[in-house]
């Protein structure tokens, strides 16, 4: 059977979109490996294998062509985001369970690719941080890149307390919130914050890697500027205002944008087209909302980072945002002739 017009098409495919997204993550991953050791590579492999297996299983159960849909690469993006947002030294079963949950529940039970209202990776993150808050807060100390020791933590039973620490965000939060220790931000983070130690040692290099990859995605027209720009701008403005109000209690814009998952969130998580807003104005609102909520959760909440919860909360609002921000159709614009 012959198709109808248009009879030719641009050579674009979902696979190419997904593969380029994965490629854009590589600079960030490189920084990650440099500062936190190669354990993350093992986690990436674990998550990828689990995701592919779970996807194949679900496609088979749902009667979809397995190879065709598996090869689109969308499930790998989810897997990589999980591996990159989880601490690299979580036990292997945690990553496997999280990835399986993301693929089976958050993606396929909602109807598969294109139908899930929530970002699957963030659903997995939220589920696991609620279920295993302890494990999800333990990061390897910067510079602790001993692969064997890390593997012992991933696959063994033993947790080596000496090499485990909280993320700078988590550390700042606990230090500020514990009743007895009323310290200031600058005292906690170190007074003369220079580059290399702004978002916590190593973190800003990783953030820089994500920024680089993200900008390349914008240049490749895979994502538009709206979401990263609105996200970063909002985070800068909100944290800047707070710092201006009370510098001893609130960390500044540089810290907030360069630490934790901010850069990853701005370019790779909030830009998930399936669960995000789609209209240009809607994208601005959506990303600004995530940034604002992220800052609120980071500053006043009880979790190490706020990106995941903020993303899910804004995912809920997407249908409304999209409905309200429909761009005017040709000839129906305001201010035109009668």
């Amino acid at each position: 059977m012959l198709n109808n017009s248009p009879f030719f098409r641009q050579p674009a495919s979902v696979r190419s979109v997904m593969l380029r997204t994965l490629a854009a993550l590589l600079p960030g991953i490189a920084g990650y490996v440099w500062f936190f050791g190669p354990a993350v590579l093992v986690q990436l492999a674990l998550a990828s294998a689990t995701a592919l297996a779970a996807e194949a299983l679900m496609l088979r159960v749902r009667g979809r062509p397995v190879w065709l849909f598996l090869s689109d690469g969308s499930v790998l993006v989810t897997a990589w985001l999980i591996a990159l947002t989880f601490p690299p030294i979580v036990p292997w079963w945690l990553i496997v369970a999280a990835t399986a949950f993301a693929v089976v529940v958050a993606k396929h039970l909602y109807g598969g690719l294109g139908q899930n209202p929530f970002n699957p990776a963030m659903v997995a993150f939220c589920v696991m941080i609620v279920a295993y808050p302890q494990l999800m807060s333990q990061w390897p100390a910067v510079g602790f890149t001993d692969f064997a020791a890390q593997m012992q933590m991933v696959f063994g039973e033993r947790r080596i307390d000496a090499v485990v620490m909280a993320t700078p965000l988590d550390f700042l939060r606990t230090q500020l919130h514990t009743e007895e220790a009323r310290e200031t931000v600058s005292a906690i983070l170190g007074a003369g914050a220079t580059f290399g130690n702004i978002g916590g040692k190593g973190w800003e290099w990783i953030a820089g890697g994500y920024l680089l990859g993200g900008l390349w995605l914008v240049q490749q027209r895979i994502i538009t500027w709206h979401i990263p720009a609105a996200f970063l701008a909002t985070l800068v403005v909100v944290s800047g205002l707070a710092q201006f109000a009370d510098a001893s209690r609130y960390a500044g814009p540089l810290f907030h944008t360069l630490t934790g998952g901010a850069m990853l969130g701005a370019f790779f998580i909030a830009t998930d087209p399936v669960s995000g807003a789609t209209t240009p104005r809607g994208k601005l609102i959506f990303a600004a909302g995530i940034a604002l909520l992220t800052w609120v959760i980071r500053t006043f909440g009880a979790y190490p980072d706020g990106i995941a919860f903020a993303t899910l909360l804004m995912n809920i609002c997407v249908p409304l945002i999209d409905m309200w921000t429909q761009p005017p159709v040709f000839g129906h614009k305001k201010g035109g002739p009668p």
Partner: protein
Amino acid sequence: MLAALLVMAVGALVLGAALGYASVRFKVEGDPLVEKIDAILPQTQCGQCGYPGCKPYAQAVAKGEADINQCPPGGEEGIRKLADLLGREFKPLSAEHGVEKPKSVAVIDENLCIGCTLCIQACPVDAIVGAAKQMHTVVSAQCTGCELCLPPCPVDCIVMQPVGEDVENWKWKYPVFTLHRRAG
């Protein structure tokens, strides 16, 4: 305690007044539900539902006397729309009232017609023209396909002809793609 009671009482009064005002201000004339149901019905006026026309059936449905699945010309889609409108559960067409058929129009075989006018009297939408002892014919553009003219005809010269597809009323088909074409 007294304050709380007062607040409640004042609240009740205000709300009651508002409701009373609204019921006067936004009073709806007639029975919009019947109109809404009637708008969904196909207006074939065929009586297959057991009522003498679409409007009486609409009234019966509105009153709850008739079920929503008694209209064969409206078909499954009509039942769905009624179910949506009335907030009821969808149910398949009731078999005792007939089956869904493709849209047809009545055609009189003019060689057989004896000009008895019985069909003219039966037609609910005056879509048959003719006079006593003169040949009759159906104005097909106005025929609803109700089949009410078939039984009265003494010579059985009326047949139902399905409305064919032509270039004007042809519809683009729902895009169907074989997912498994290159699967595996």
